[in-house]
């Protein structure tokens, strides 16, 4: 059931979720997106370019964070605009062969602004991993009925 514009107000929370990330997830994202930069799957390469280790694709974090908005909106096509800045990398440790995630990403969303003329709501996402905000100005504009 999609939300109705008139029932929303700025500051309202739309929910939160936790995304668990493994090295396998990064390999899957590399294959699905075509971004095969080895900093996202090869430890030696990543540390060789002065990273602390393998990091998630920024686009993996952006793409998985918006699922909170998609599910809330009820239709993926309702997300008419989505932007972010990438501020901190998400370090994903190698937990291959265990049931443990290599990183967790906490996503929460609040209504930032309502535009009655356009019939849109801007959802502001807070995206945190290892205690740091990894995305800034993560804003999704949702077209509502």
């Amino acid at each position, binding site marked *: 059931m999609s939300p109705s514009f008139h029932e929303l107000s700025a500051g309202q929370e739309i929910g939160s979720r936790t*995304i668990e990330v493994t090295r396998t*997830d990064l390999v*899957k*994202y590399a*294959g*699905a*997106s*075509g*971004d095969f930069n080895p900093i996202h799957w090869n430890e030696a390469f990543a540390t060789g*370019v002065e990273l602390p280790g393998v990091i998630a694709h*920024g*686009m*993996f974090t*952006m*793409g*998985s964070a*918006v*699922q909170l*908005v*998609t*599910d809330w909106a009820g*239709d*993926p*096509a309702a*997300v*008419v*605009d*989505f*932007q*972010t*800045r*990438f501020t901190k990398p998400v370090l994903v440790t190698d937990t291959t062969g265990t049931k443990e995630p290599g990183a967790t990403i906490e996503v929460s969303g609040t209504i930032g602004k309502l535009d009655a003329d356009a019939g849109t709501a801007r959802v502001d996402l807070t995206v945190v991993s290892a205690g740091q905000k990894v995305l800034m100005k993560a804003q*999704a504009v949702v077209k509502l009925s």
Partner: protein
Amino acid sequence: MTINPDLQGRSYPAAEVYDVGREKIREFARAVKATHPAHFDVDAAKALGHTDLVAPPTFAIIIAQRADAQLIEDPDAGIDFSRVVHADQRFTHHRPIVAGDRLVAELHVDGVRAMGGGAMITTRSEIFALAADDSKEPVTTTTSSILVRGEGQ
């Protein structure tokens, strides 16, 4: 290696056509941990009024990064890909991307700004769907900034 300041204002015309397939939408949706049925089940997508499976909001990055590759691989640009960091990204959807779309992207270099020994480069991809008569319908505008780190950055 230095960034060519004359890149600003440069455009790269649409090259290859990207055919959006159902299985690619499903694969990309799984890869970003999307579970909405409109990405997986044609009937669910049609029930929402779409002609076919709907792509996730960031799917267009596949097409945009292919377009960006034209710039990054252009020897005249002077970009060392191993020193590239993704700084920001935006998608503006004029209509949703659905399975069956035939997409092309025109790349525009909107900004080149020196930063230390490196540069911040802002690009925009205008993504169009080709109709049967090859006319173009605007689908998505993506903008992205990449930081090309200079020595010691």
